[in-house]
């Protein structure tokens, strides 16, 4: 188990130092919500603010999306867990963030708990990555050793027949309310405007028809092919608990198998769908 109290202490200390030295304008981290089990994203702007920071097993929300609201050229510190750090790397690859604007406070966090279910988030569900892939300050002990494959959870879907699987996704996706929490929670969903908000052309019904919802999610899944870093924000944010992460994982697995590259692992990589190589597989065209 992760020593959350110690990490929290280090986090507050580090945030204070960075703010005191004027190295960053703000620290994006977690603060107290309405109780201990429900921390909230929190921005510390002064040394005094830093005392309000918390870190515990319920700090599951991936904060990287908030970086997209920060103007470039102003240095910002942010807490990143394993998958979150991959989001930063992926966004740097996509030229949406600049490395020099960021101070990454890495936290190797295992034993994180889903606030709704109370269950531990592991490789089975989301967030299989424990150690940050990129950080400036490491605020805890890195963990090594094999964990379960993040794709293990896909087994039941893989053994399903094609028709059953399609039925499964139709059932799941037609429950969508179109609250768009998934796209708003997703650090990779930064299109402005999102294709769903466009009226000319209109890509899907504005009203929540099942066909329109399926259109929305399938398009979003494919927009995220080779880009999803499996943080699970979309699925945890969903008020009706659609397991979106399963589809994202499948695409991530395909990308990894076909192109030998997982999203957001190294700054030097090009996003898989942008990087064309002659030796690339044409498996998907068959």
């Amino acid at each position, binding site marked *: 188990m992760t020593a959350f109290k110690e990490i929290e202490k280090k986090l507050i200390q580090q945030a204070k130092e960075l703010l005191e030295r004027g190295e960053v304008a703000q620290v994006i981290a977690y603060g107290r919500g309405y109780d201990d089990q429900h921390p909230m994203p929190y921005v510390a702007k002064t040394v005094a603010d830093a005392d309000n920071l918390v870190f515990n097993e319920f700090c599951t929300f991936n904060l990287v999306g908030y970086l997209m609201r920060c103007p470039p050229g102003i240095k910002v510190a942010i807490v990143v867990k394993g998958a979150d750090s991959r989001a930063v790397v992926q966004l740097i690859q996509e030229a949406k963030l600049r490395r020099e604007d960021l101070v990454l406070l890495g936290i190797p966090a295992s034993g994180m708990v889903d606030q709704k279910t109370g269950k531990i988030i592991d490789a089975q569900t989301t967030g299989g990555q424990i150690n940050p892939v990129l950080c400036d300050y490491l605020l805890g002990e890195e963990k090594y050793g094999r964990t379960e494959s993040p794709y293990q959870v896909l087994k039941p879907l893989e053994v399903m027949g094609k028709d059953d699987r399609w039925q499964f996704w139709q059932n799941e996706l037609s429950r969508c309310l179109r*609250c768009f929490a998934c796209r708003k929670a997703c650090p990779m969903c930064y299109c402005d405007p999102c294709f769903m908000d466009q009226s000319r052309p209109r890509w899907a019904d504005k009203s929540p028809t099942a066909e329109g919802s399926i259109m929305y999610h399938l398009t979003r899944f494919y927009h995220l092919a080779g880009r999803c870093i499996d943080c699970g924000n979309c699925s945890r944010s969903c008020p*009706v*608990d659609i397991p979106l992460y399963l589809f994202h994982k499948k695409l991530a697995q395909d990308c990894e198998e076909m192109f030998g590259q997982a999203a957001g692992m190294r700054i030097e990589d090009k996003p898989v769908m942008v990087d064309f190589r002659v030796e690339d597989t044409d498996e998907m065209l068959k």
Partner: protein
Amino acid sequence: MLKKIEQGKLSELVTALIDQGPLYAPVRDDRGVNFQSIRSPLAVTLDFYNSVLSPKAVFFPQSEDLISYRLGRGEPTAKTTPLPTAQTILLGVRPPDAYSFFLMDELFLGSGIVDPYWQSRRDLTVVIGYPFINQTPDAVDFYSSLGISATDTRGSDIFLIKKNGELLFKGLTEKGNALLAKQAALFTEATGDDEQYYLAALAQGAAIVTRNLDCDPKRTASKLENLFADTAFWEQMAAACISCGTCTFVCPTCHCFDIADENIFRDGARRRFWDACMFTDFTLEASGHNPRSRVYQRLRQKVCHKYSYYIRNFGVISCVGCGRCTRSCPVNIDIFTIIAEAMKK
């Protein structure tokens, strides 16, 4: 009128009710409890705290066709969708939610323009309330703050209370008594002991206190009016908000809708469907200008609509303290905390 039935016979009762018309009741699946149109009597559960989504969709569906039309060669044809005519029963509604129907009546019926869709469904529906009894309130509920009790009868036609293996049904309105009379064959007459049990249960439930906050409507409204231009306050409250529509979609009193014509080739419909003030394009104008382009402006709109504008328009706070928005918020924004902070200002 107080009637009773053995709990084991609930499915018989449900079957009889389904025969009368559509029945909406709480159903549990692996993602929690929600109100659904009941086809199988065994699906109904009474063992729940509250539904994830509010039951407002029974009166105000997430999407409904107002007009259907056919375009193409020759004269286009169009017809308005007939208003519903079937008696509907809504079973298992918690008192704060039942009261929310009253709050929505203010807008849909009392604003000078009557919404025929809302009105017909309200007239046709019998609401069977299910008060909180012997139940610790959820940590985020705050209906007490809004003057709603755990056994509030406002908005219910019948009250349903569990009594060791039996279910007591108390008719509260004419509509409710008529329904109980119609199903008389299934019920047995309640005894004096049941009467006492019912009253004791109500008294016990009425003592339940949730999180509490003094938010007198007039004072709250003027407080928020004075705070409107305090951008720093709203930016702080909205710092974590990701501007999704979850809070408004789970809310029993959020009622904003959009209307669009949608067609596939020649056949189409003019639909109205839930919209949310938290969406970026909610106030987007045709020119491209958006008067609420920032997240804090949208969150301020949501809070002030409930706790300020609605009071100025109808004299009541448009919130029942059910706690759904807080429970479902991906980043744990809590409207109770926002109001509490505002009142401190």
